[in-house]
Structures are given as structure tokens and as C-alpha cells.
């Protein structure tokens, strides 16, 4: 808790040179997705701003986001936790646990009221008074509301916190919702993904730490610099799409040659994320690079947009497997048959009418 220094003060304490400090600032500028012209501002902020305390809560989730975060490469997760922010409370990363730890949380919330960043991982189950997720003997909803009351900003880390998550899939038995569905009146940023790219989380925290405000957000509340572009528009396999060269099956020659995964269900055209340009594990790879279609894990309701390996979803027609094209084709066929039948009936009616008129004019032919 004594870790309330600025970044520059921290560097000096550890005997790191000014030159290294400036280099770090340059890296941070790039990491935040800022233009190089912003470097002086980043340096100024890193010199003066004290690093904000971070409280990290876990709700209805699998802690996979934690798993991703501790693999943050640039900067290293250990650097983030120890040198760049002061992570004061995280029940999965901390050495301590139990009552003493919960006391620590209480003290923190009192001492840094209105200053700390609240990172929330996991959805909020509302069914049955929220008993489907309990922490420290309380419902997660209660714990979240208490922690959110004194937060300077809230980060919804992962698709569960941002959209409700996998457990919110139809029919959503626990009524799991996003953090912003139950908390309002605070600056909230969504960092969705299942899990999100760890560097993105780090960058969002750093942005708030340095500038005291959230980064620019898109219409859905996600930081623009990381969720602005479609996977499809940043995909290294895009030339194959543009040329009409597609993987038809996972074991065909196209798959081997690394062609476009559009026809095996890739959600790249609807997914907004940074996997295409930042990639994972220090740029090592990402799903599409390993030959798997994108699931759009950062998008709302991605869990209900199945099946993942089909371009179009199934329409629940009993006893069949039908997608939009099949249903459309059948409906259009039925319309064709319908109009032909209607035409035949019309022609019959007309000829009957003509005969009738003939009869009327000429009289019955005896």
C-alpha cells in the first residue's frame, strides 16, 4: 500500500537511468496506441502522476482472463503488477487470503475512496437474489456494488464482465448480466474478449493511470484504439478472401496452404479486436494464424451465434438443419409454385367468365 509513487520516482528508487525511463515512456506511448507526438505528455504524466491503486474483483467466470493477464509479455505481467500499477487486491494473484485479506479490501476502499481503479472480471448473476456467485460469504452483486461506489473508474475485463459471458447464453439460467447493467454513474470501459489480449488490459489501466481518464471509446464502450478495427480488415489471410480462395474443410489443401477461413465459419468480418495486428504472446500467434476460425469472442452474444464452424446460424426448423439460404430458397420455391398455381386458377376463371359472357350475348346454344 506504500506503493504510491509516480513511475519516475519508482525508477529512481530502483536506480534505473533517466535514459531507460524515457525509453519506457516511448514504449508505453506505443502500447497505449497514441501517436509519437504524445510522448512528451506521457513523460510528464509518468513523472508526476502517482500510480493508482487497483482493486481486481472476480465474479461469475472461469478466471481465464487472469490466465491471459499473467502471460502479458510487453510489459511483463510481473512488471505491471509490481512496478506500473499498485495492484492492491486480487484474490487469485495475491499470496494472502481469508479474513485478513477481506479486511485489507475494506481498508483500501476506505483509504482510497474515489481514487482506485476497479477491475471486474466476470458477470453478475441476478437470479435467486444472486446466490449463484458468492465471495466472502456475500453475493457478488453486493460486493461489486460496495466496491463500485468508491471507484474512480471501472474496467470490465473480459466478455463476462462486459456482456454477461458464456453463462448468459440462452436461456441464461442464472440471469447473468454485465457489470454496466447493474452499475451506473461511473466511467466504465469494456475490455471484452474470451480472454482479452493481456496487453490491451495493461494499456487501458496505464491510460487511466497516466491521464486520469478513460481512453476514447466506441459506440459500445470499448477503447477505440484496440477495438476499432475488424479482425477481417487486419487479417494477414485477407488476400485469400479477396481472391476467392477458401478453406472448405479443415483437412483440405486450402487449410494446409493457409487460405481464408471464411467458409468454415470465421467471424473475422464481424469481430472487433486487436488480434490481427497485436497478436498474442508477444506477437507469437493468434487463432486464425493457427488455422482456427475466429469466434468473435469480444462480441456481445458470440456464444449464441452458433454453430461456430458454419458461416450462417441454424434456424430452428424441427427435424432439419437449415440456414438462411436454405430457408430462403425453399420460401422462394414455394412462392414460385404458388404463383404458377394461382396463374392456372386465374386462367381457368377467365376462360369460364369468357364463356359465360359469350353465353349471355349469344344466348344458350340449343
Amino acid at each position, binding site marked *: 500500500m506504500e506503493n504510491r509513487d509516480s513511475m519516475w520516482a519508482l525508477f529512481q528508487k530502483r536506480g534505473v537511468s533517466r535514459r531507460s525511463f524515457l525509453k519506457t515512456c516511448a514504449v508505453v506511448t506505443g502500447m497505449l496506441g497514441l501517436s509519437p507526438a504524445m510522448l512528451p505528455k506521457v513523460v510528464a504524466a509518468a513523472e508526476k502522476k502517482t500510480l493508482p491503486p487497483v482493486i481486481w474483483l472476480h465474479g461469475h467466470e472461469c478466471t481465464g482472463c487472469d490466465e491471459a493477464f499473467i502471460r502479458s509479455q510487453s510489459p511483463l505481467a510481473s512488471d505491471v503488477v509490481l512496478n506500473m500499477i499498485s495492484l492492491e487486491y486480487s484474490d487469485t494473484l495475491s499470496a494472502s487470503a481469508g479474513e485478513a485479506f477481506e479486511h485489507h479490501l475494506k481498508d483500501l476502499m476506505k483509504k482510497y475512496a474515489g481514487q482506485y481503479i476497479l477491475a471486474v472480471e466476470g458477470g453478475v448473476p441476478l437470479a435467486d437474489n444472486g446466490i449463484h456467485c458468492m465471495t466472502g460469504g456475500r453475493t457478488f452483486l453486493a460486493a461489486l456494488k460496495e466496491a463500485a461506489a468508491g471507484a474512480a473508474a471501472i474496467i470490465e475485463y473480459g466478455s463476462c464482465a462486459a456482456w454477461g459471458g458464456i453463462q448468459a447464453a440462452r436461456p441464461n439460467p442464472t440471469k447473468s448480466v454485465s457489470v454496466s447493467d447493474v452499475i451506473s454513474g461511473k466511467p466504465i470501459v469494456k475490455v471484452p474478449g474470451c480472454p482479452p489480449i493481456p496487453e490491451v488490459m495493461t494499456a487501458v489501466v496505464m491510460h487511466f493511470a497516466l491521464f486520469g481518464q478513460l481512453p476514447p471509446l466506441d459506440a459500445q464502450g470499448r477503447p477505440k484504439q484496440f477495438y476499432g478495427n475488424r479482425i477481417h480488415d487486419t487479417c494477414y489471410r485477407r*488476400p485469400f478472401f479477396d481472391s476467392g480462395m477458401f478453406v472448405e474443410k479443415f483437412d483440405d489443401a486450402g487449410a494446409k496452404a493457409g487460405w481464408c477461413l471464411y467458409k468454415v465459419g470465421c467471424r473475422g468480418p464481424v469481430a472487433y479486436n486487436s488480434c490481427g495486428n497485436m497478436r498474442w504472446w508477444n506477437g507469437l500467434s493468434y487463432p486464425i494464424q493457427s488455422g482456427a476460425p475466429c469466434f468473435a469472442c469480444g462480441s456481445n452474444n458470440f456464444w449464441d*451465434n452458433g454453430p461456430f464452424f458454419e458461416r450462417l446460424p441454424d434456424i430452428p426448423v424441427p427435424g432439419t438443419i437449415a440456414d438462411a439460404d436454405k430457408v*430462403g430458397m425453399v*420460401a422462394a420455391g414455394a412462392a414460385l409454385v404458388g404463383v404458377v398455381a394461382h396463374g392456372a386458377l386465374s386462367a381457368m376463371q377467365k376462360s369460364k367468365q369468357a364463356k359465360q359472357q359469350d353465353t349471355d350475348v349469344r344466348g344458350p346454344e340449343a
Partner: protein
Amino acid sequence: MSEGPVKEYYIYSPWLRIFHWVMAASVGVLFATGLYIGNPFFIGTQGVEPTFAVNKLMSMETIRYIHFAAAYILVAGFILRVYGFAVNRGDRLLPKFWTALYWQGVVEMLKHYLFLSADHRPYLRNSLARSAYLGVYVLLFLEAVTGFAMYFMVDPNGFGAKLFGPVNGLFGGEYTVHLVHHYVAWLLAIFVIVHVYLVIRADFMEREGEASSMFSGVKFFAHKPADIGDIADDSDKQTDYGTRHRQYPAQG
């Protein structure tokens, strides 16, 4: 068959007619290219590096380009429709839901199409047709909005994305937008089938020049159409409603 002279009634301005055929052509192109974009069903260029295959005929890139160009032509063409609406009385955009005539026409035409009545009063454009065309405009609007929402997000900070990007959030995600775009395309295809049939049927059954009216702008009626108010003030004294008014003797 019909007694007495057949009169010529001028209804559609050239603007509406040009728009109609621009729309017909672009919707056809959009549907065909859209089917390929949604499900690339034929194998693209083989044995060429994708960098060069992009420019080949019928590559995804080319087909998408045609799709987007046709979309812009369709949207721009609607200006003609609106202009026709402004300058010509017959080019009405909306059905008159608030009139008794409209609802009578709906009942009458439904009965006629269900073979419950052999005849119906003559109409310049009957109520069901008018309602269907309004439906088409709604569907085309949906297609344009969802299409632009997907199209402009290539440049998420551009003007188009600012205008249409939020549509993606409105539909609960861009995936749903793709689906809506897809379903509505099929609805339009079904409309085209029914529309073409009913036009041919009307020409066949009523011989009022239904099909040719979209080229010439005129229809022919032996009796005064029930919705004559759409092109002229309906009064019994005034029967002359335009310079294009000609009479033809009845065919023996």
C-alpha cells in the same frame, strides 16, 4: 369484349420509370453478387498468388466491388423517385391509409386474388400493390442501412462509420446485421417473384397495359378508375385531365 372507348391515362413520370428499371437491374445484381459474398459457392482462381488473383475476373474482390457499386447506384437512383414524386402527381410514394377507398381496395383485391370475386373496380394502382411497394421501400431501406453499417466500418473513424456504425450496436452486434441483410434479401427475392407474376396476370386478365405502363407511363381503362383522384381532381364535370388524354375506339 368491353363496350365503349378505351381511354389512355398518364400515370408514371419518366423519373419513376427510369428508377424502376435502375432498381430492378441493381437489385438483381445485388442479389446475385450478395449470394456469392455470403457463401462463395464456386472455386476462385487457382495456381496464382492471391496478390495477383485479386484482379482476376470474378474474384471475391471484383464481386464485392460490383455489389458495392450496384448498391450506390440503387441508393442514388432513389433520388429520381423522389424527384418524380415532387413533379408528378401520379408518382405517389405512400398509400393513403387514411381513406376509405384504400381499405375498400384492400378487401376488394384480397377477394379477387382469393378467387372469391371474378372482377374488381379498375384502379390506376390497387391498394395491395401500393402497400407492397411501400413494403419494398422499407426492405430496401433496411438493406441500405445494414449494408452501409457493415461497409463503412472498414474505416471506423470515417464519416460513414460515425453515421452508420451505431446501427451495428442497435441490432445487438454486427453478426445480427449480416443475418438481417441476408434475410431481407430473400424477402426481396420473394417479392420479385410475386410482383412479376401479378403484373403479368393483371395484363392477361384485365388488358389495361399493366406491364407496358412501366415503359410508357400510361395505362388504358374502359371505365374511370376508382383512384382517379391520384392523377386528377375527381369531379364529374371535369373529365379532361391532361394533354396526354386520348381516346381509342373499342375493338370490335
